């Protein structure tokens, strides 16, 4: 097979440059001593130090992390169950897969509005738990797709063998299937967590006083303009997510090369 032509190389390089340039500039300017965007005032970490003194921001970060941890765990458990059901069972599949795939592309304003109306209809005060449940609902669909993709290539005969050897279906699932799909389950959790960490629109509709998440805080600051503090917190978030994603990727790579 022929390798990439010059045109191929240029397209890929230009595409990656386009994707990364804004992010790289943002990271660089988070270390800018000057408050102005276009003036480089020397290297400084003072904006990071300023973050540590910003109690509102730290509160929002705490809320976001708690929402993310709980909602991602809920979403992964429900998503794994949904993936098993989708792969193994044929009955009622159309409705079920519709409910899984529709939220993936559904505009977030619609999801946010509909969830909010649900909470209002039941008289539930908006706050920490309403955001968490909302995030779990949307991210469970992403988790399902990730686990499902792995499950379809998993050999069902292995689970049947475990059943023949006397395992109950639940035992067989935990002893055979789950270890095999574990990298996908981990990836599903990571994806659910980062989506929750990033979400502005759904959280804006479903959160209430006392449960301001970090994206809501960043959004209200962004509306006032570009600032080095936002660059700094953004850089930290990007770093956190990139580390997690690359870790999962390397983990999956190692498993793949270790497999016979």
């Amino acid at each position: 097979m022929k390798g990439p032509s010059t045109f191929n190389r240029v397209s890929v390089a230009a595409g990656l440059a386009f994707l990364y340039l804004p992010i790289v500039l943002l990271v660089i300017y988070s270390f800018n001593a000057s408050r102005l965007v276009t003036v480089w005032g020397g290297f400084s970490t003072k904006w990071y130090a300023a973050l540590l003194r910003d109690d509102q921001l730290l509160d929002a970060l705490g809320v976001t992390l708690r929402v993310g941890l709980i909602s991602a765990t809920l979403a992964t458990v429900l998503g794994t169950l949904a993936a098993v059901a989708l792969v193994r069972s044929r009955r009622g599949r159309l409705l079920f897969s519709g409910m899984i795939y529709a939220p993936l592309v559904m505009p977030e304003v619609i999801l946010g509005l509909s969830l909010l109306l649900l909470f209002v209809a039941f008289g539930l005060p908006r706050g920490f738990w309403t955001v968490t449940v909302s995030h779990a609902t949307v991210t469970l669909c992403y988790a399902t797709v990730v686990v499902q993709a792995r499950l379809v290539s998993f050999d069902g005969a292995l689970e049947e063998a475990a059943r023949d050897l006397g395992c109950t279906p639940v035992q067989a699932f935990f002893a055979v299937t789950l270890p095999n799909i574990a990298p996908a389950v981990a990836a599903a959790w990571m994806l659910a967590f980062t989506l929750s960490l990033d979400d502005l629109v759904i959280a804006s509709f479903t959160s209430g006083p006392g449960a301001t998440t970090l994206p809501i805080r960043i959004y209200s600051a962004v509306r006032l303009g570009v600032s080095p503090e936002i660059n700094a917190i953004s850089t930290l978030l990007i770093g956190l997510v990139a580390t997690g994603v690359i870790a999962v990727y390397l983990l999956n790579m190692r498993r793949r090369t270790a497999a016979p």
Partner: protein
Amino acid sequence: MSGRSRTGLAALAPLLWLGVFFLFPFFLVAKLSLSDTALAMPPYAPRVDWSAGIEGVRAFFAALDFETYARLTSDSLYVASYLSSLKFAAVATGLLLIIGYPIAYGMSRFPPSQRLALLMAVILPFWTSFLIRVYAWIALLKPQGLLNAALAQVGLGPLNILNTDTAVYIGLVYAYLPFMVLPLYAVLEKQDQSQLEAAADLGCTPSQAFWRVTFPLSLPGVGAGALLCFIPMVGEFVIPDLLGGSGTLMLGKTIWTEFFANRDWPAASAVAIVLLATLVIPIVLYQRQQQKMIEAGQ
């Protein structure tokens, strides 16, 4: 057949969850779109008066009407923002195809060992915050921003891009590029190179071979990428809000404004229902295609 019923049991929890938190709320949105605004909390009427029993329920249904929809169609602002949303999403999808195709194609020509790293490089920005990636463009595009500073170095500019429709297009293409590249790459990578050789043997030039063999075979990826980008872009909020100007009309922004600024919940719901009705067919197409692709992945 206990195995099957256990599988049914596994489905029960997510099914119930999605039924309560995803499906049921749409009935509430539909109901609210038929209600009237009211100076109350929550700001709409009528509400079911359960104490009046069946009479209360009847009175509730009698009070529902299509007045909000009539209001939407008679107000040219809503109609304009509906059409403008479709235009933004359609043009941006076209741009994404033109920009994304050569990238996906280029990636698929690299040796397999390097492809995984390239794939990772395209996916990584998708994982980083949408809000932050859109925000990064403000610093680039604003009047005293980095783009104009760079242009001034070579004696050009300044360009006023921020708060215009151009900025919205840049933001849409930027934010959705991974969603276009990935499905395209997935089909292009699987293509059998010997088909191109066969086309060459039969006298095709490389560009003929591309248009007659590669491109038609990649159409499922084109369809998947286009749907994956078009559907959420029609209802996009963050990009038109942060990068667009006051004249940028998009439905996502309309819903947000009606809800948060005007506190007109019935109008926000009616706009959401119209948006949903528009997107139902593309969503069903997308769902069917995804199901097929996942099952083919065995």
